[in-house]
């Protein structure tokens, strides 16, 4: 899988979910590089913005799209990583804020 191909797929996937990928394609490609790196070292695409344990059972909540994506988009217009965003976020109709970590602290730490 290449980042360009993954980009094309996720663009369609996001659309099917009624959301979008961040307009900043350069940034998105960096996220996708992280996802593919995690896939090659862990066997699944865990969130590149969070430390994975490397054990699927422990990381299942942060396998992209993470379980926190939808509530984060609903509340802030973007997911924690700013990969998936709402249309309004991309159109700058809502303020771009830093999304606080929704993942319980006891799960953090690899």
């Amino acid at each position: 899988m290449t980042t360009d191909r993954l980009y094309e797929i996720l663009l369609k996937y996001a659309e099917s979910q009624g959301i979008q990928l961040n307009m900043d394609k350069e940034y998105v490609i960096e996220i996708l590089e992280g996802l593919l790196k995690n896939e090659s070292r862990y066997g699944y695409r865990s969130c590149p913005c969070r430390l994975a344990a490397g054990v699927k059972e422990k990381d299942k909540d942060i396998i992209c799209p993470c379980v926190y994506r939808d509530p984060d988009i609903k509340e802030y217009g973007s997911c924690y990583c700013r990969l998936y965003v709402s249309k309004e976020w991309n159109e700058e109709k809502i303020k771009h804020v830093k999304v606080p970590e929704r993942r319980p602290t006891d799960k953090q730490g690899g």
Partner: protein
Amino acid sequence: MGRMKKARLYGLSTCPTCKRVKNLLDELNIKYELIEVDLLDSGEQWLTSKEVRRYNPAVTYPTLVIEEVITEPDEEAIKEALGIK
């Protein structure tokens, strides 16, 4: 003078935001220690996560720690470092 500041960046090799902070520090010519936690082995990751938690209970990346080291902590140096008169 026994006072110096040290910067340490805890990041992930996969995280674009960490990369941006790194670039910013480089542009500003700031010397820092870089710890890419995901590249450490599992024991080191565990230990480093505990370390990050001390500074940032949410254990999120990037976390930048800027510490001041006072090697001769007399009253004057302590007050000066804390900005108290």
